């Protein structure tokens, strides 16, 4: 038995003992490479959507999702090396929301790296968020892995700077997922140039993990399950042996393989979203590979939120989802077909009725 499996088993055992097994709305990600001494894990919390009502009142439901993720992340064994927050800490980008979210996040006993979401950004273009959390895009190395964080939710300058009478109006227009006045997300030229320069210093054999809020692939433009310059980003990542893109925004399980790049989404702590095929009036491109998560039952307040740990043994990505009120899922990289596949439900005839979305 190798160290990777042992540590995973030990984690599960501990989690089970603490009665956390099916309730953690966070993602624990394990990266395992040739040198097992360098193995490490990180946790991933995303899409909290802290929403201010007035005065000191915030929407209780969304608060509870984040508070729970933070509390349970603190109980993780083995301890993660750090935590990622995948964007949309706030609902309308206000100081009140960002401060309240930061206060809840401050209970974490780990270093936290933040990713920018559109709900954090479009009020002041990330000004206050930067004061709290730092740069909007950056990279760092950790135990042999090169991490890249992008602000992937920018859009056309004309929309951002010339379209709206006030910053508040701009925020409201982008906050509506299905708002036809919205605009497609993009990384943009400035960050693409930075990324090109950043990656030029990295060996092609170094595993790359890219964190973005929106999928760096095109799934459904109407809800911005989409990044306008996805192909250009993919082209910059193409020369590397092992690339993983992990994204938030979609509030649901998605996975895909494009060339050398594995794509995986993480769950929201706030609420689940429908799969785009359940909107009858528009075309969408959910990766054929993705076996959807079970349909959410709104009577369970935290249903269809969940957590997963990912190990990238040999640089490929295996996801183990544990979902509140649902059976656990495993999406494992198949070295023969060279794509992620669900270990139980991938075959058409193996799927269960709740995975049918219409």
């Amino acid at each position, binding site marked *: 038995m190798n160290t990777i499996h042992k540590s995973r088993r030990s984690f599960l055992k501990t989690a089970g003992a603490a009665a956390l097994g099916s309730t953690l709305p966070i993602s624990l990600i394990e990266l395992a490479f040739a040198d097992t001494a360098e193995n490490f894990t990180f946790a991933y919390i995303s899409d909290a959507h802290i929403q*201010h009502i007035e005065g000191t009142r915030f*929407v209780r439901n969304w608060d509870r999702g984040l508070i729970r993720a933070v509390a349970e992340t603190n109980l993780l064994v083995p301890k993660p090396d750090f935590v990622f927050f995948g964007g949309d800490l706030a609902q309308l980008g206000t100081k009140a929301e960002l401060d309240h979210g930061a206060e809840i996040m401050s209970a974490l006993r780990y270093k936290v790296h933040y990713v920018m979401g559109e709900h954090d950004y479009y009020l002041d273009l990330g000004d206050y968020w930067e004061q709290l959390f730092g740069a909007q895009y950056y990279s760092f190395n950790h135990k042999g892995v090169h991490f890249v964080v992008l602000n992937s939710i920018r859009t056309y300058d004309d929309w951002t700077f010339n379209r709206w009478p006030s910053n508040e109006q701009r925020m409201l227009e982008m906050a509506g*997922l299905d708002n036809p006045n919205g605009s497609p997300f993009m990384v943009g030229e400035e960050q693409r140039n930075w990324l090109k320069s950043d990656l030029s210093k990295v060996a092609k054999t170094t595993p790359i993990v890219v964190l973005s809020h929106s999928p760096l692939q095109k799934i459904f433009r109407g809800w911005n399950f989409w990044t306008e310059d996805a192909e250009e980003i993919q082209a910059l990542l193409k020369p590397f042996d092992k690339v993983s893109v992990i994204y938030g925004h979609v509030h649901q399980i998605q996975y895909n393989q494009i060339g050398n790049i594995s794509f995986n989404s993480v769950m929201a702590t706030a*609420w*689940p979203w429908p799969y785009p095929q359940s909107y009858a009036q528009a075309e969408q491109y959910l990766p054929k590979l993705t076996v959807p998560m079970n349909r*959410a039952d*709104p009577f369970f307040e935290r249903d269809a939120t969940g957590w997963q740990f990912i190990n990238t043994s040999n640089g490929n990505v295996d996801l183990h989802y544990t979902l509140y009120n649902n059976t656990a899922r495993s999406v494992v990289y198949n070295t023969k077909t060279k794509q992620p596949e669900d270990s139980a439900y991938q075959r058409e005839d193996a799927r269960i009725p709740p995975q049918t979305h*219409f």
Partner: protein
Amino acid sequence: MNLKPIKAILLLPLALALATPTASADEFTDADLERWQQQFMGVVQQGRDLWTSPELGTNGVACAQCHPNAANTHPETYPKFQKQLGKVVPMWEMINWCLKNPLEGQPLAADDPKMTAIQAYVTHERRGVTLEPGKH
């Protein structure tokens, strides 16, 4: 019993109707169709406004936050057995469940114009989908 005044009242509109043949109940024009569609789409728009409104409940949460384009509401499947309620319900009962719980608001009467508008919007977003009452 004196019926004469009533007859007179009944005969008057009949006479007017005969004088204007386009008002017959079994005929309508393109202009009528257009007007009726406009009336319907006006209510659909009211429904969309309510769907995205932070004012419908008490906590600022809007229907559209969880149901963009009213997806995952499935108006074509109602009435159906709603397992969480343990009985067959029409759609407006589920809408009220959402108003009371995620929106922390008050339920609407079944014939409240707001309830009509919400159902008009939700159904319009599912236009073209086969009716499948009872489907889960």
